[in-house]
């Protein structure tokens, strides 16, 4: 397939996955704040600042707004077109990529992504956004999920689809690693202890942000402990948003494109992905905690970034310099 098309499939998929993840993170956070209604003002700052950190968007936010308030953060993360993590930016970028490859994707996929874009652009979304914030973000998440479902059900599972898989898995692993790290930025209120009420509420919010609540509860019989949440989100081999699961899928997609057996590699992206996979297969949560969770997750993000880059180098080297962020 055309290198340019492979690139567009990959980024379309990353952006649509990013929109979903970001919408969920925001939705969970707005819900979480409701638990602390009495300490609202203090918490607004404490609760939204880490979210900006998760998105790497603190710096840009501060150039636009003097203080951290829910109203401003929500607008910034939802509609600000200059913010590359905002929902509107992500959906518009996904659609722009889809537009260049309309003949590669099914018309159902295009219609779905176009509908989501038209909704976010249109006045109805503003009404929903102000009227029922949670439902609004749900609608964006569902738009993205519908797109992914339609993709699986209507597109040939050939090479282009594998590039879409890779985009989805890299983005999802990256998002989970950032969320698992959110507690690094999230300070406990004065007087609260690790393992105390607020700490547990915050860990639950992390689980919800990864759509992992139900799956986690089933496995750990309802007991929320910081290290088990970490273990679950990083190392679980069956949960579809855990880092390890995503890296396994990424690895299969890579090998299915090149046709190389899964225990060998034929390019740099495969080599790095294979190393990352083995590492995740054979490490334990205790080892991760010994290195430091934050350092470990930072490393994950770097490795994913490297794979993304070498992927482009391998399959799109004929293209002019790629403009992907």
């Amino acid at each position, binding site marked *: 397939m*055309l290198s*340019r*098309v492979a690139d567009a499939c990959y980024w379309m998929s990353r952006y649509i996955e990013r929109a979903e993840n970001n919408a969920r993170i925001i939705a969970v956070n707005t819900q979480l704040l409701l638990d602390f209604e009495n300490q609202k003002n203090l918490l607004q700052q404490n609760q939204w600042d880490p979210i900006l950190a998760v998105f790497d968007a603190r710096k840009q936010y501060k150039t636009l707004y003097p203080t951290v308030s829910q109203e401003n953060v929500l607008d910034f993360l939802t509609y600000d077109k200059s913010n590359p993590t905002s929902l509107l930016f992500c959906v518009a970028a996904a659609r722009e990529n889809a537009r*260049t490859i309309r*003949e590669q994707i099914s018309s159902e996929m295009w219609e779905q992504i176009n*509908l989501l874009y038209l909704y976010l652009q249109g006045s109805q979304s503003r009404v929903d956004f102000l009227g029922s914030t949670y439902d609004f973000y749900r609608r964006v998440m569902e738009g993205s999920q519908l797109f992914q479902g339609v993709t699986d059900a209507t597109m040939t599972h050939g090479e282009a689809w594998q590039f879409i898989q890779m985009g989805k898995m890299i983005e999802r692993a990256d998002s989970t690693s950032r969320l698992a790290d959110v507690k690094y930025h999230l300070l406990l209120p004065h007087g609260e202890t690790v393992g105390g009420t607020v700490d547990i509420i915050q860990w639950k919010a992390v689980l919800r942000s990864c759509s992992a609540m139900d799956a986690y509860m089933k496995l750990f019989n309802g007991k929320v402990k910081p290290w088990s949440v970490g273990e679950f989100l990083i190392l679980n081999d069956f949960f579809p948003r855990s880092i390890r699961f995503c890296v396994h899928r990424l690895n299969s997609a890579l090998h299915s494109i090149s046709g190389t057996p899964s225990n060998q590699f034929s390019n740099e992206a495969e080599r790095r992905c294979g190393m990352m996979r083995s590492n995740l297969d054979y490490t334990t949560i205790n080892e991760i905690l010994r290195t430091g969770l934050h350092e470990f997750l930072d490393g994950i993000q770097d490795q994913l970034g490297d794979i993304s880059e070498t992927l482009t180098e391998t399959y*799109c080297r*004929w*293209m002019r310099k790629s403009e992907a962020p």
Partner: protein
Amino acid sequence: MAFGFKDYRTEGFFDESFSCDGAPHDHYRRLVERFQAMSQEEFDRKRILAEKAYLNQGITFTVYKDNQGTERIFPFDLIPRIIPAKEWDVLERGLTQRIQALNLFLHDIYHDQRILKEGIIPADLVLNAPNYRKEMQGVDVPHGVYIHICGTDLIRDDQGNYLVLEDNGRCLSGVSYLLENRQAMKRVFPNLFSQYSVRPVDSYTQELYSALRYVAPQGAQSDPHVVLLTPGIHNSAYFEHSFLARSMGIEIVVGEDLIVERDKVFIKTTKGLQRVDVIYRRVDDEFIDPKIFNPDSLLGVPGLFDAYRKGNVTLANAVGTGVADDKALYAFVPDIIRFYLSEEPILASVKTWLGMREPDLQYILENLKDLVVKPTNESGGYGLLIGPHATESQISEFRDAIRANPRNYIAQPVIQLSRLASYCDGAFEGRHIDLRPYILSGEKTTIIPGGLTRVALRKNSLVVNSSQGGGSKDTWVCDFTEENGC
């Protein structure tokens, strides 16, 4: 005002749908009855249903000169144009004759130039035309086909006679609207289709694909590799490019996807370079190769023209076809048909005065108020003067421009285009229409039944171009028999 056709007036124009006494023409009777039976609400529901389908599917075009860069839908009118098969068969023969003559003409112009040597056409008119490409001299194209895809605009005058208005033999668009209009109509009025036996149009993309494969170069792969070259997603017709590529199952590429090595053309793929045999290019001549034509072009591919000249790749349409759809050359097409085919032209043309001919020029300058004046090298309905609708200052502006550069202008009488009932602001009114059939030249000449009917939705407007407030209609070629009463 009551919904329906009670107040419909033909206002002295030739009307496709109604006769001047207010009764529908036979072949429109059932259709009119169906629309009469509808309430305003039902009609609106259907109209909105159709419009939504277009918007959601992204069937849009981009408007230049509108700094919003907005995507708009091409307005679609629900009343179809109906052409009885008897009428269509004549058109089909006439168009086939015309395209065969034009292809022979182009081959001649870029080889021996017999038609110029024999004085049938002034050499100056051809060799100094802006779209004559001297680089094509002596280049052989597979099977002698230059215009693989042609759109010939037809109109009907106040007597209902079909006339050729112009040929479009370069990069022309619109066929996707034709195909989508049919889809929309089938969805909205399924029952009407079973009553009228409408000739299907959906084989177009398959016919196009066979025509493109047929013109693959001699040394091509046994399964020729065809791609569609687009200027990119910001081009106003990108939707169409994508639509056609998708329907044919071929890759849509931009200039940067292609690379020329040792005079052969390749696409850049995830598995390396792959050879290309035929390029259905929707990029104009001037932009296809910065080495030969416009050096600033980023849309084209350096070295493409040399690969083409050496016969290693086929471009459709061929380079240099613009000399055949030149508005001044138009006046000579009947002679071209007689010269190459020794036949009389089947389709009539519009009387045309050429700025380059001294007596014609005098006539044009003296009668500007009554004429339509066209620049010979503009398309899309830009730069027209419609004398009777023009102000004094517009007329004097044109007079100066024509004097300064007579070669660039032609003039024609104002034709009162036929009208057809169309929905406008809550009622049905007559609006002017034209017809663009699409003609494919491959192993044989294929014409998709009907064509794109464009309608000038602004009252009294004669300009049907989408960029100028035009819309479109589905076009039905129907096989009527005595038996079904039509």
